[in-house]
């Protein structure tokens, strides 16, 4: 796919997210919207994977550590062929494979079960260690974490371990959207200087615009090229990206319908913005 095609795909995934969340009437909006470009890049360009063979033993692994953002992963999986797009509307419903937070056992293609924060990087480290024991040198573990999630001590335990064992087969991506449930990250629990912290922990740190497709793809390529250290990409994203009234507003992190999840009126408005590129073009179905 060209960069333009990837960007169009990301817009499609954002529309899916809005529809899913409106339908489910609960969940988290801002994070998945902000991550749409990263997940599109991963599923449609970066990852070595086969939607028809989710247990292919040469695949790259992708872990979503901040499991509450899973709508973006479900939408990316459906759009890349893991399952029918129609199934997206079962999100959070009884009997659905698309649990409110991802469960490996429920849906082939998910590498782990997450939601409780801070555990993805450790699992990635275990996987990366096993790959090394197995002498699998051409597989990578990608792990996406939230920034609020970095409040968890478990993350830093894993950061030390990955550097100790030089797990250069890990590429960790932090969704640096500056919001968490109780407010701005720097107010709830300051994280800065984030880059310096990870550098001090022994990681190769790359700062990028996490809503810029080219930068995402380039940073991951750089991460694969770095052999001296594990790589951490600080992806600066706009929470709620693509919908004006959601962008930057931590109230959209998660909550009850209409507060953190779009109600019908808000969903129509959000979809209009996405379909018209914020009014720049006429929407296809409007």
């Amino acid at each position: 796919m060209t960069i333009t095609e990837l960007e169009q795909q990301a817009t499609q995934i954002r529309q899916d997210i809005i529809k899913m969340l409106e339908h489910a009437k609960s969940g988290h909006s801002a994070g998945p919207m902000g991550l749409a470009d990263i997940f599109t890049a991963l599923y449609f360009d970066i990852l070595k994977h086969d939607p028809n063979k989710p247990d292919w033993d040469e695949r790259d692994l992708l872990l979503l550590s901040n499991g509450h953002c899973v709508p973006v992963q479900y939408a990316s999986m459906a759009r890349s062929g893991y399952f029918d797009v129609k199934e997206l509307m079962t999100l959070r419903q009884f009997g659905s494979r698309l649990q409110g937070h991802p469960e490996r056992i429920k849906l082939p293609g998910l590498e782990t079960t997450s939601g409780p924060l801070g555990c993805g990087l450790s699992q990635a480290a275990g996987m990366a260690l096993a790959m090394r024991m197995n002498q699998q040198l051409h597989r990578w573990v990608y792990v996406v974490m939230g920034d609020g999630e970095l409040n968890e001590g478990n993350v830093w335990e894993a950061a030390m371990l990955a550097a100790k064992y030089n797990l250069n087969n890990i590429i960790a991506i932090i969704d640096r959207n500056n919001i968490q449930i109780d407010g701005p990250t720097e107010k709830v629990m300051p994280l800065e200087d984030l880059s310096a912290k990870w550098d001090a922990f022994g990681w190769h740190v790359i700062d990028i615009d996490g809503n810029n497709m080219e930068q995402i793809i380039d940073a991951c390529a750089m991460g694969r090229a770095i052999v001296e250290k594990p790589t951490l990409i600080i992806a600066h994203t706009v929470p709620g990206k693509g919908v004006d009234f959601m962008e930057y507003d931590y109230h959209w992190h998660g909550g009850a319908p209409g507060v953190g999840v779009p109600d019908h009126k808000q969903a129509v408005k959000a979809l209009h913005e996405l379909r018209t590129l914020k009014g720049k073009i006429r929407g296809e179905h409007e």
Partner: protein
Amino acid sequence: MNNINLITDNFLNHKFDTEAIKKGFGKGLLAAGQQNDQVVAACADLTGSTAMNMFAEEFPDRFVEVGVAEQNLVTVGSGLAAMGKIPFVSSYAAFSPGRNWEQIRTTICLNEQVVHVVGSHAGLYTGADGATHQMLEDIALTRVLPNMVVIAPADSIQAQKATIALASHDSPSYLRLTREPTAVFTTDKTPFEIGKAYVYREGTDITIIATGTMTYNALVAAENLAKDNISVEVVHLPTIKPLDSETVLRSVRKTKKVITVEEGQISAGMGSAICELLADEDPLPVHRMGVQDKFGQSGSPDDLLEHYGLTPKHIALKVHQIL
């Protein structure tokens, strides 16, 4: 000779060697590692103390030292298991599963990754370290988790067998180990299977169900009670979950009286599991012996068992009270 299943007559002379139960784990892990190269191990800065050192020295490339980081310990274990490895991850029970319970719940049990969580220094036998390190709540914490197997071996030989058995078992587990040496009273021939309870002594007047180190004390008590013509049946429960309800019910239905003994809190522990079973199947008063909703303290294991009422003498006294 009424020590069935146990296959020893050593109780006649009471001469047993002693060895720490954790040592048996160490030997078992080494053997499992030799049998299967997918067996790996991780430890949180207690490699010698949890008897993982033999494995670590033999297989340095299959051993991961995570440092003092128990949350990382089990989640790294989950990642290793995801790749087909068979990880044993060890620390002290107070820290694992004590500190990292949620990680065990989510990334191992709910995630169905076969990780074997090994907690040493469980119970009062931890001795001088005191209450912080004497883990008494681990059985309660682990047995409530779906998919989890919970095992408390009676001695070092059984710990060795349990470890080898777990290495080819297909569900996650918690293996409870003891620090100070205890009597080695089972033998190579004593049967052990995950999920099975064993009658170690047949009797007709009362059933004592015991787990871990307390099985030995129950057997000693039973031996002494025999001198007063009291016939005690001792059921050893090395696997607390899944519970071998058939063996337990068969014994209890025969004697109609039951005591449970464990080196841990009486709340939500092994005795509680027996209460739950009997409440469902065959309601009967259950006399639970264990630590009575208190924390431990520093002291020798003998002092502590005396103070908390878990010696053979205390068990015999309880039998007299009930009969």
